[in-house]
């Protein structure tokens, strides 16, 4: 299990591959890896978004992500999980979040991955402030699935 908050741009596919190489469970045991990659768009609710500031609560954010990862590992028959989330200044096209779950079969991998990203989005302490062409605004919480 790995949880990381990063303040610099990261390549989710390189991170996924690098983490897989650290897994002690042999590749022949995991038949499935499900992942979700979230990327910053350059628009939101009809406006062009030029950049974004991602704030978090150091300590609590990691603690919450650890809690949901541990829950996923007990709730589903999965082997491991990975969450990486960006903070600080972000540009359109940058990866915001990577969530992955490894399992012997696809169903638990997909379900655990879905659980982790939905819990992260609805309860993990992160806040977004968008810079628009004119002015800036905090993003309010009424997200679409």
């Amino acid at each position: 299990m790995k949880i990381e908050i990063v303040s610099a741009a990261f390549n989710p596919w390189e991170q996924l591959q690098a983490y897989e190489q650290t897994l002690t469970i042999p590749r022949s045991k995991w038949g499935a890896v499900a992942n979700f990659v979230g990327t910053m768009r350059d628009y939101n609710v009809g406006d062009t978004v030029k950049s974004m500031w991602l704030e978090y609560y150091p300590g609590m954010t990691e603690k919450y992500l650890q809690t949901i990862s541990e829950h996923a590992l007990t709730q589903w028959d999965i082997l491991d999980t990975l969450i990486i989330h960006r903070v600080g200044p972000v540009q359109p096209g940058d990866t915001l979040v990577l969530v992955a779950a490894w399992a012997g079969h696809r169903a638990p991998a997909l379900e655990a991955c879905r659980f982790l990203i939905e819990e992260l989005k609805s309860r993990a302490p992160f806040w977004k402030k968008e810079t628009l062409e004119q002015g800036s605004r905090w993003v309010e919480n009424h997200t679409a699935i």
Partner: protein
Amino acid sequence: MTIVVKFFGSLREEIGNHEVKIKAEQPLTVAQVWAQACDEVPLPHHIWTAVNMNYVEQNTLVQDGDEVAFFPPVTGGSDEN
């Protein structure tokens, strides 16, 4: 007793402060901590609250040395619409 109070997101900007310390003679609830830190303004209903980095209700009792946080609903991940 001394309590550390933290604010995040838009609330941090509105309050104009990320962190304050308050002193109290007797145990306070989270809502009373807010009132003492914010000039007796009632705690808005939509604000989320945490003590020692765990989500709590507004009527939770706070102990000496606790860290109490107030913040707006969270907006992590991606996919806003």
